[in-house]
């Protein structure tokens, strides 16, 4: 059987092709139109970096976009180091960081020095030391800073040393681009070799997931990531909370930052103002971090 396209089929085929082409053209043109319709300008704002700041940035972005429908805000993670580098290189408009930027964050980036980055403090945080709820329920609810250091540098390896069950401690932490990772090192007097982890996760939520998923774990996350599944230990008797972080009695408190290259302008300014406004700070509290006093 020889399959020869009849005239009718040819016509149908051409018709179909034309329709599809028109559909494609209209959608692409039309999408250009909608952009123009909205006040004639569309702007995109990109934020990236700390996964501690990320939930705040995400929720603020959604609220901000609801107010300004012609602005698109995209939030990425990656860790504080990525955020600082990213804003310096122009990959992100705003770099989120859960620690202060240092000079060697910018090694390899030409033409940008630490002085070029403008720091905006947007919230406070207390690094919470979370444990599996089985451990917490077994009585391990308080720990000293020295014991904490011992857990991370492996001088303490079993929960029974701390009054808990006879189980090996499974230590969950972050990778080296994380601001929280660096903060823990700074606060406990450790470094990349002495902070020994069993697993290194790339964001707060995954640390929490790892600790929640086992019955023998400890990990560190931002304050907003604590809940009954992963309760936080008191450090030297002080529990992490909005009040203990605000008055700095919680030993592992720290500020959260957004960095811009040069002073914030235009949409960047609008967004940072939003985060610092009462609405933005209410969102900070909603995400269970600590609003600026």
């Amino acid at each position, binding site marked *: *059987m*020889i399959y020869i396209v009849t005239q009718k089929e040819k016509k149908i085929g051409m018709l179909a092709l034309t329709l599809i082409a028109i559909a494609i053209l209209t959608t692409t043109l039309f999408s250009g139109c909608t952009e123009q319709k909205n006040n004639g300008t569309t702007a995109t704002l990109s934020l990236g970096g700390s996964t501690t700041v990320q939930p705040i940035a995400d929720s603020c972005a959604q609220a901000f976009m609801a107010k300004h429908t012609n602005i698109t805000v*995209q939030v990425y993670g990656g860790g504080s180091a990525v955020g600082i580098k990213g804003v310096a290189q122009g990959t992100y408009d705003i770099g989120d960081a859960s620690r202060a930027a240092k000079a060697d964050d910018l090694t390899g980036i030409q033409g940008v020095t630490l002085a070029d980055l403008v720091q905006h403090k947007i919230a406070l945080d207390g690094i919470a030391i979370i444990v599996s709820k089985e451990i917490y329920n077994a009585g391990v609810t308080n720990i000293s800073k020295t014991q904490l250091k011992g857990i991370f540098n492996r001088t303490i390896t079993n929960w029974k040393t701390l009054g808990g069950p006879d189980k090996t401690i499974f230590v969950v932490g972050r990778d080296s681009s994380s601001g929280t990772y660096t903060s823990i090192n700074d606060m406990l007097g450790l470094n990349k070799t002495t902070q020994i982890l069993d697993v290194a996760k790339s964001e707060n939520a995954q640390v929490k*997931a790892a600790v929640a998923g086992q019955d023998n774990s400890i990990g560190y996350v931002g304050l907003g990531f604590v809940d009954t599944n992963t309760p936080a230990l008191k450090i030297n008797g002080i529990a992490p909370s909005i009040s203990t972080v605000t008055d700095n009695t919680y030993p592992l408190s720290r500020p959260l930052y957004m960095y811009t290259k040069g002073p914030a302008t235009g949409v960047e300014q609008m967004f940072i103002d939003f985060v610092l406004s009462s609405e933005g700070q209410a969102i900070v509290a909603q995400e269970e971090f600590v609003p600026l006093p």
Partner: protein
Amino acid sequence: MKRKTLVGSLLKIIKNTFRRENATPKKILCTVTILVSSLISLLGFFSTVFSFYIGDEPVRILLGIVAVLFSFLLYYSLVKAKKTKESIGLLVFTVFVFFLAYALPMIPPKYGLEQFQMNASLLKFMIVSVALVIVGVLGASFTMKPLYNFTSRANQASAYFILTFALLLILYPLAIIIVNISINGIGGFSIDFFTKDVIKHGAEGGVNHAIIGTFIIIFGTGAIALTLGVASAVYLIEYAKTGPIVRIIRIAIDILQGIPSIVFGLFGLAVFVPIFGISILSGILVMGFMTLPIVIRASEEALLCVPKSVREGSYALGATKWQTIRRVVLPPALPGIITGAVLGLGRAAGETAPLMFTAAIFYSKIPVSIFDPVQTLSYHLLQLTRWIGAYPVDQNAWATALLLIGFVLGMNAIAIIIREKFRVEF
């Protein structure tokens, strides 16, 4: 046609056993032994899966029964059939089972592996269950020997028994995956799930944007892969003469097929993202290249199905090569090409790694141009998976997994329907 399945053979054995003249004690004994052994191995298997221990006494009793049965078999083969040499295996096995019946329940509850510097232990139930499975399978295999009078038929029956068991082992993980995802996922299907976008880190809301994004990626990938792929196949089948160039092209296509998806992702990150940013365009370029070999293969096969005579007839009527391809060869090959393409796109729908670095994002508006990033079902599932335990995303994760599998299955089904309905027979 002889049925060689386990069930078939078992039924045959049982049927034969109950035929008066065939119901020798030996046959009954063997049948019983096989049944008991199979049951024991199934029991062991299920206790591994559901993590329970049937208890010291039951283990002893079961193994004891097997040992006794095998003693009888031993008696038969040594004394009655006088096959001393072949019975050595049976003897060893019987002794082994007696030993296990005595020793297994006495194992301590936990055998720590710390002495091997491994932070794990072998739990009693696991050891016992595995032992039961092994005893069961070996027992049934060994029973074949006296049953078939130690001929090579016996070896065959043993081998077939083990093969059937292996098949069950293969089907088992598939069953777990499908059953679990279906049961847990269906609860997450709701109107909201399909119509709403991501809310609260994916714990609430739905995958509406992800569904749209997945479709966008599929269409874009299809456009690129089909254009390049069909053209390549046309060249390879219609124009190419065998030679070094064609060989190199084929090798390149094979290598392309084998490249891991993450290498494509990095390639996109290195080449397309600096130019186009994280965007649909970067994504479909990378996915298009990844799907290309599958489409080429399918198109080649479809074109090969068109017989030479049809082409020659066309040339005989004075048509040029291009006219022949366009009007005579391609149209009947089209269903096969589309089938292959749809199958390839079904696989592409499930891919995560290439899009992670080039196009995907978790929160976004519906993309309005090809320079916007997209959500996809696969990337959505990835993020939800990473957050299990951190946010209450479990229900949505199961539902997304179910949707994803359903999607891929659906595309496979469409491909098969296209193939069956539009197939042109020559």
